C-alpha cells in the first residue's frame, strides 16, 4: 500500500499533530519572531528529541527507530501546519540520512547517535549561489598532509544559525559546474577559521551565512568517498526535497483551512463572502490542486521506504507541485482575507512569508520541472 498509513504511522501522525497544535502553534513562531529569537528554539528541540522525532530515519544501532520517510513525512506535515521552526529536515533528514548511508562506524557513534537522540543539531552547507545548484560548488578543499583545508562562502545555510555540526560540501577536484570532484566534510561549529553569521529571514525561521577561511579537517571527518559527494548527496537531497514537500503540504493545507473558515464567517453585502461563486470556484480549484499534490507527496514518501527506482522523479514531482501549490494558496489566502490579511496581526502574512522560503529550498519549481523533464529525456 502506497497511500494508506499503517496503524503505527497513523499514530505517529496523530502524535505529531497534537504536539504541533499544543507545543508549537503559529503563535509560537510569532513569539519567537517578536522576541528576536531568530528562529533558535532550544525548548522545542528538547521536546522533539523527547518524542524521538530526530531518530525516525536513524538505524536502531544508533538509537534511532528506523521508522522511515512516510513516518517522517507525517511529522513534517504537522510541523508545516503551524509553521513550526525546527531543524528536523536539516538534522533529522539530511544529516541522519547522510551519516546512515555513508558514515564510518566511528562517525556513526560520534555523530549519528547524538543526532538521533536530538543532542546535536546539524546543517548542510552546500549551495553558494542564490539558487539551488549542487554542481556549482566552488569552495576549495586543499590537501594538507593529514587532511584538507577548506576555504569558501556558503551564503544561506538552513538551520546553520544553531547547528553544532556542518556537512560542508567542498571541491577536492575539478571546476565549478562539474559533477565529479566534490567531497563532504564534517565540520564542528567551533572549528578554527569557521565564522557563522546568523541571518534574520523573512519567515522568522532564520538561517546562517558561513565563511570558511582555512578550516582544517582531518581525513577521519570526510563523509563518504572523496570526489564522489554527489553520489551520496543525490539520494540525501531527494529525501530533503520530499521532506520539504511534506512540510509545505502541511502549510498549504492549514492556509487553505484558515481561508475556508474565513469564507464561511466574513460577511459583505449581507452575504457570507464564501457564497460568492467566483470565490467558490477559486476555492474548489485550490482544493483540487491540494488533493492532487497530496497524492504526489504520499507517493514520494513511500517510494523512499520501498527503495523504489522512481524516487528521483517523484522527489522532483512532489517538490515542484508543492511549490506551485503553496504559491497559489498563500496568495489566495491573503487576497481572500482582504485588508485584514495585510495586517501583521493576522497570520496570513506569516504563511505568505514562509511559503516563499519553502518554494526556494532544495530547488524551486522551475529547477524541478527542468530536472523532471531531463530524467524523462525531453
Amino acid at each position, binding site marked *: 500500500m*502506497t*497511500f494508506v498509513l499503517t496503524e503505527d504511522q497513523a499514530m505517529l501522525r496523530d502524535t505529531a499533530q497534537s504536539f504541533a497544535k499544543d507545543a508549537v502553534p503559529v503563535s509560537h513562531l510569532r513569539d519567537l519572531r517578536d522576541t528576536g529569537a531568530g528562529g533558535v528554539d532550544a525548548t522545542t528541540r528538547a521536546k522533539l528529541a523527547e518524542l524521538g522525532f530526530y531518530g525516525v530515519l536513524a538505524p536502531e544501532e544508533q538509537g534511532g527507530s528506523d521508522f522511515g520517510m512516510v513516518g517522517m513525512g507525517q511529522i513534517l506535515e504537522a510541523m508545516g501546519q503551524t509553521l513550526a521552526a525546527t531543524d528536523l529536515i536539516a538534522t533529522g533528514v539530511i544529516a541522519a540520512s547522510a551519516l546512515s548511508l555513508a558514515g564510518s562506524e566511528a562517525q556513526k557513534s560520534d555523530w549519528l547517535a547524538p543526532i538521533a537522540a536530538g543532542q546535536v543539531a546539524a546543517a548542510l552547507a552546500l549551495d553558494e549561489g542564490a539558487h539551488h545548484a549542487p554542481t556549482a560548488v566552488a569552495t576549495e578543499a586543499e590537501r594538507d598532509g593529514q587532511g584538507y583545508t577548506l576555504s569558501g562562502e556558503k551564503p544561506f545555510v538552513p538551520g546553520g544559525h544553531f547547528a553544532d555540526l556542518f556537512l560542508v560540501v567542498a571541491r577536492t577536484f575539478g571546476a565549478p559546474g562539474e559533477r565529479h570532484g566534490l567531497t563532504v566534510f564534517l565540520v564542528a561549529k567551533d572549528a578554527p577559521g569557521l565564522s557563522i553569521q546568523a541571518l534574520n529571514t523573512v519567515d522568522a525561521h532564520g538561517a546562517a551565512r558561513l565563511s570558511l577561511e582555512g578550516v582544517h579537517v582531518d581525513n577521519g571527518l570526510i563523509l563518504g568517498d572523496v570526489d564522489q559527494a554527489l553520489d551520496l548527496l543525490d539520494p540525501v537531497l531527494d529525501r530533503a526535497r520530499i521532506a520539504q514537500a511534506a512540510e509545505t503540504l502541511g502549510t498549504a493545507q492549514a492556509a487553505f483551512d484558515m481561508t*475556508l473558515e474565513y469564507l464561511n464567517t466574513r460577511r459583505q453585502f449581507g*452575504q457570507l463572502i464564501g457564497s460568492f461563486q467566483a470565490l*467558490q470556484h477559486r476555492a474548489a480549484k485550490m482544493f483540487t490542486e491540494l488533493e*492532487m499534490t497530496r497524492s504526489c507527496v504520499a507517493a514520494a514518501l513511500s517510494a523512499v521506504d520501498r527503495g523504489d527506482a522512481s524516487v528521483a522523479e517523484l522527489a522532483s514531482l512532489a517538490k515542484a507541485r508543492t511549490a506551485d501549490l503553496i504559491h497559489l494558496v498563500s496568495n489566495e489566502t491573503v487576497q481572500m482575507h482582504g485588508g485584514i490579511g495585510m495586517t501583521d496581526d493576522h497570520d496570513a502574512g506569516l504563511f505568505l512569508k514562509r511559503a516563499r522560503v519553502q518554494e526556494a529550498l532544495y530547488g524551486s519549481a*522551475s529547477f524541478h520541472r527542468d530536472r523532471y523533464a531531463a530524467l524523462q529525456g*525531453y
Partner: protein
Amino acid sequence: MAFDTPEDLDSFRSDVRAWLGENCPETMRTPAKEREVVWGGSRETFEHPDSRVWLERMAERGWTAPTWPKAYGGGGLSPAEARILDQEMRRIKARPPLFSFGIWMFGPALLEFGNEAQKQRFIPDIVHGRTRWCQGYSEPGAGSDLAGLQTRAEDMGDHYLINGQKVWTSYADQADWIFCLVRTDKQNKHGGISFLVFDMASEGVEARPIKLISGSSPFCETFFTDVKVPKDQLIGEVNGGWPIAKRLLQFERASISAGGFGGTGGSGILGPEEYAKQHIGTGTDGRIADGDLRARITDHKMYAKAFSLTVQRSTEQAKAGQEVGHTASILKYAAAKMNQDRHELLIEALGTEALGWEGDGFDPVALKATRGWLRSKGNSIEGGTSEINLNVIAKRVLGLREHQ
C-alpha cells in the same frame, strides 16, 4: 459468497487464468479498432467475427457484468473476485467483450430501484448484449440545470403519453431502448420527475444525429410525439425519478473520469514531448529546444502524473474502507482539464501538421490528433460541466454556503 479467504482468491485467480487462456480468442488480445468495438443490441454487426464468440462466452458466465446477481444472469462475483477477473483480463490484454450504457449506468440503477419483474425482464438482455440502451436526460432548455426538463408524460390510465425533446442522447440512433427522465408534475421541479424506459422503435420516436465540431456524430436530438408507454415501464414511484437520475449520474461521471471518453489510446498518437522534439528540434543535450514549450509540457506531464496517483490513492483508500468522496469529486474536473491541456499541447507541438482536416496532404495520425483535440473540448461539458463540478466541490465538499 460472504467473504473471501486469501486461499479462495488464489484458487479463483488460477481458475480465471485457465478459463481465459482457453476461451479468449488470440485475436481478442489486441487493442480494438474503433469500429470493432462491440456495443451489442439489434444493430450490432460484429465487425470482427471473433468478437461475437468472445461476447457469448463471457456473457454465458455473466462476466460482462461480474458483480451482478446470478439470479439475473450476472457473474455473482465478490468485489475482490471482480478485481481479479479485471487484472487477469488486463494481463493478457483481453478486449472488453461489451461496451454498454446498460452495464455502466442503467443496470446498476435498475438493480437498486427496479421491481422484481423489471429486473427479470431487462437485466439478462443487458448482460448478453442483446439490448442496447441510451440515456434520455438533457433537453434544449435543461443542460446544467437537468431538473428543468420539460418532456411531458401524461397519465392516460393504462399508459403514459410522452411528448417532448431530448438532446445529447448518446447513440440514440443505434439504441433499442431508452431510459428517460420525464415530467409528471409541472408544479414540483425535482419532485415532479419520473423515470421511464421504453422501446426506441415505438411509434412517435425520432432520433436525429447531431454533427459535432470534430465531424463525428455520437449524439442525437431525440423527439417524442404522442409516444405510448405501458405503465409497467415506470421505474420506481411516480414523481420519484430524481433520486434515481442522480444515482445514475454518479455512474456516468465515474465512467467519464475513468478516461474512457475523448482519449487517444491505441490511436498511435505520441505524447506532445515527442512531437516537440520532432518538429521543433532538440539541443545538444538531446532535449526540446524550446524551453518555454518544454516547461509547459512538463507542467502538464506532472499534472497527469498527479492525476493518476490520485486515482490510485482513492482506489487504495476505498479498498481500505476510507471515505474517498472528497478525492472522487475532483476527478471529473481534473480529467477534463488534463485531457484538454494534453490535446492543446499536441496541437501546438505539431505546428502546421495539426492544421489539417482531411486528405493525404497530412499525416493521418496528426489528423486524428486534431479531431481528438476538437472532441476533447466536450470533456468539460458532457456529464456535468466543469462549472457544475466546481459548484459541487465548493458546496458539498468544502461546505461553502448558497448565495442568499
